[in-house]
């Protein structure tokens, strides 16, 4: 049983190896290192699937092991900092997603980067491998500190890849923005990690003394934590919020979402990787990973749900008016991650993980499809310059359509099942007594209409109607290396919903909700739900009802499912009605001032720039003045006095020997006089 887990860390190490190899020898390798990346991620994918099969069929796991202890704490006190791995259903599922998307992105890059004759490809592939490695290591982390380390590495890789075309104007500044904005959130995360260390002395996710279990005990027996007169519940709330800061930054939730649309400056396959599987998914994964901790805190859950629901709607409205294909997808990513946060806050752990999974598939598909369109259109991204591509790019069109249906949440595509599950879980707990969830649910429902509308506005503008430019008349053809990933993901987008068909669970039975069973640890060792691991879905459910007061109302999922589907169809219908014409009108211009606000993203960027220049900068100036004037002033004054005194005193060094002799003699005489007075020679 543990044999498999001694091999499993290799999942993480393959991409690291390929990173090092490409870094050293990339220039001389076939396809400039692409092959090494493909092989490495392919192996990672194979081993991940194998591990998953062992867990599903042979009941192996869960498994946690500390691999390396880099700072040993004092005996019985202090903290021990370690690197370790944790293989459980959640992390293994995520490993499969990440390595699958990374693998397909590598293949797609052959068409998008190599065939287009880009330069600097070894750097590109090396960064991709490092990116994959960081994310996989983040996923298998068994403690919060290690997670933080790789969380940061993920941020670094995104910086490298968004700024890949660093000779142009846009990408370097977009890369910097992504780095800085996420760093702002990560700062809170870091403080949160330190807080967890300070309060619990460990950051391990699993094990009887994991900080999650300790926190549950602390709230459970009402221990008062006396630091700053906070109760134990308040300490947990604050810590959870601090860590949430990192998740908000990485998962691009309001108000730290502004980096994500700009990140579209990077190569499109990178966008697919960032949005579907790696960087942005990291935030949601982090919250899901330590869900037992969040489940203890009803306040933070409510914030999470409201924030997620609000972001889902807020980002979706901005997607309505965008003209670039990738911009629409960028805002839809923010919006979809909002749904996941909503599900987590609404007590739908399975729903969130399910949506993370299906979203990874269909969003990667949409981005890769957009990449194929962009290549076909000779790097034109404006949808108004496209049109009529559906007959000329059959494979791209069909797969993109599957992805769009999934994104819009149309039955029976993947997104329908997962988005509906997220909404249903929220509603269920809202009816069960958590009233604030009604607001979040409302946001989520409204976002469904908007999502379906902007998704199909995008589809109609890009693929339907008459070609509007010469490029659209005669698109560049795309190769198998771009079609293959599209087809794989297209099939996934159609079928992935089968993982967890929650809406019709009354017909297929609870036991056939595969993902829920999987996350409950039904296929693996008994200890999964008990104190040793305490990571199972069932355990989280207990925590939610015991500490957060989330009770599920008895409610058939069919009704809410039909409502969500109906709303999605309305959105789709409106899009069809407005944009089906061969020469569609730019209907959005009728919105006038509202459109201007939406085009400018609610002036969020301006607000943040104001915050930096109007608020932070004066404070920084004041601090600088204090530092320069008072702190440095004191130091400089000490030096200045010495300098001045030295300048004067050195004049006594005349260079004339007689003067020195005279001073010596004088000194001797003075000494004698002093000795005489002191010794009482004369008096």
């Amino acid at each position: 049983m543990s044999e498999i887990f001694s091999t499993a860390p290799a999942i993480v190490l393959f991409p690291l190896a390929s990173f090092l190899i490409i870094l050293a020898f990339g220039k001389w390798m076939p396809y400039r290192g692409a092959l090494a990346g493909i092989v490495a991620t392919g192996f990672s994918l194979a081993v991940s699937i194998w591990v998953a099969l062992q867990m599903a069929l042979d009941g192996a796991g869960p498994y946690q092991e500390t691999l390396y202890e880099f700072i040993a704490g004092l005996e019985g006190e202090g903290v021990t900092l370690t690197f370790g791995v944790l293989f459980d259903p959640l992390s293994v599922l995520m490993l499969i997603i990440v390595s699958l998307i990374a693998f397909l992105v590598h293949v797609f890059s052959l068409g998008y980067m190599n065939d287009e004759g880009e330069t600097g490809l070894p750097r590109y592939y090396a960064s991709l491998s490092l990116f994959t490695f960081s994310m996989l290591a983040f996923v298998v982390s068994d403690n919060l500190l290690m997670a933080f380390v790789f969380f940061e590495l993920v941020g670094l890789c995104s910086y490298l890849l968004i700024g890949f075309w660093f000779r142009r104007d846009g990408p370097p500044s977009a890369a910097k923005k992504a780095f800085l904005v996420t760093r702002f959130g990560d700062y809170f995360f870091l403080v949160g990690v330190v807080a967890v260390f300070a309060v619990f002395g460990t950051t391990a996710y699993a094990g009887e003394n994991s900080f999650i279990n300790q926190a549950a005990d602390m709230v459970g027996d009402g221990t008062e934590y006396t630091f700053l007169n906070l109760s134990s519940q308040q300490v947990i709330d604050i810590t959870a919020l601090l860590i949430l800061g990192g998740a908000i930054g990485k998962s691009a939730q309001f108000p730290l979402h502004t980096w994500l649309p700009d990140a579209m400056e990077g190569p499109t396959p990178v966008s697919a990787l960032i949005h579907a599987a790696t960087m942005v998914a990291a935030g949601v994964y982090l919250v899901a990973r330590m869900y037992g901790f969040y489940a203890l805190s009803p306040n933070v859950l409510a914030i999470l749900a409201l924030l997620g629901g609000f972001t889902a709607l807020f980002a979706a409205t901005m997607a309505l008016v965008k003209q670039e294909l990738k911009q629409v997808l960028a805002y839809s990513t923010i919006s979809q991650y909002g749904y996941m946060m909503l599900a987590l806050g609404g007590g739908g752990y399975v729903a969130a993980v399910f949506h993370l999974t299906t979203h990874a598939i269909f969003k990667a598909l949409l981005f890769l499809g957009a990449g194929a369109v962009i290549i076909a259109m000779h790097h034109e991204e404006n949808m108004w310059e496209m049109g009529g591509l559906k007959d000329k790019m059959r494979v791209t069109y069909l797969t993109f359509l599957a992805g769009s249906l999934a994104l819009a949440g149309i039955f029976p595509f993947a997104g329908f099942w997962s988005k509906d599950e997220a909404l249903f879980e929220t509603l269920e707990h809202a009816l069960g007594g958590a009233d604030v969830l009604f607001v979040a649910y409302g946001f989520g429902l409204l976002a469904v209409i908007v999502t379906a509308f902007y998704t199909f506005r995008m589809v109609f503008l890009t693929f339907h109607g008459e070609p509007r430019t010469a490029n659209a008349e005669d698109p560049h053809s795309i190769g198998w290396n771009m079609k293959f990933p599209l087809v794989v993901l297209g099939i996934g987008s159609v079928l992935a919903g089968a993982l967890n068909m929650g809406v019709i669970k009354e017909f297929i039975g609870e036991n056939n909700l595969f993902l829920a069973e999987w996350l409950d640890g039904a296929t693996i060792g008994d200890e999964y739900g008990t104190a040793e691991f305490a990571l199972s879905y069932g355990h989280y459910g207990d925590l939610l009802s015991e500490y957060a007061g989330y009770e599920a109302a008895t409610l058939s999922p069919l009704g809410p499912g039909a409502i969500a589907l109906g709303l999605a169809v309305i959105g789709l219908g409106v899009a069809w009605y407005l944009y089906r014409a061969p020469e569609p009108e730019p209907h959005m211009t009728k919105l006038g001032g509202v459109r201007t606000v939406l085009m400018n993203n609610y002036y969020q960027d301006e607000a943040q720039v104001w915050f930096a220049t109007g608020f932070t900068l004066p404070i920084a100036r004041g601090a600088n003045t204090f530092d320069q004037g008072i702190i440095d002033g004191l130091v400089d004054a000490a030096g200045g006095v010495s300098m001045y005194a030295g300048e004067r005193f050195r004049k006594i060094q005349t260079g004339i020997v007689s003067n020195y002799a005279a001073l010596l003699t004088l000194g001797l005489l003075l000494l004698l006089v002093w000795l005489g007075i002191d010794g009482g020679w004369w008096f």
Partner: protein
Amino acid sequence: MSVPPEYYLILSAAVFAIGVFGILVRRNALMFLMSVELMVNAANINLIAFAFFYGNLTGQVFALFVIALAAAEVAIGIGIILLLNRNFGGIDVTEAVTMRW
């Protein structure tokens, strides 16, 4: 054995004072060297006088050491004066002032 020790000390102090005076007022480096020699010998007189007074040979031994030391010092001093003459065209110590601030 009728000369009291005070006389030796007065002699020594006088010789020492002459040496100090020479160093303070003379500008000729050779005179400097001679003045230093006078001061050293003033110390020697003290050493011998006390050795004689206490009937102890240690002071005489020390005086011998001081004489050897003075010889070495003169050798080095004359070397320095030679270089002084070569570099500054004379042996006036107030002329050689390039090593100041």
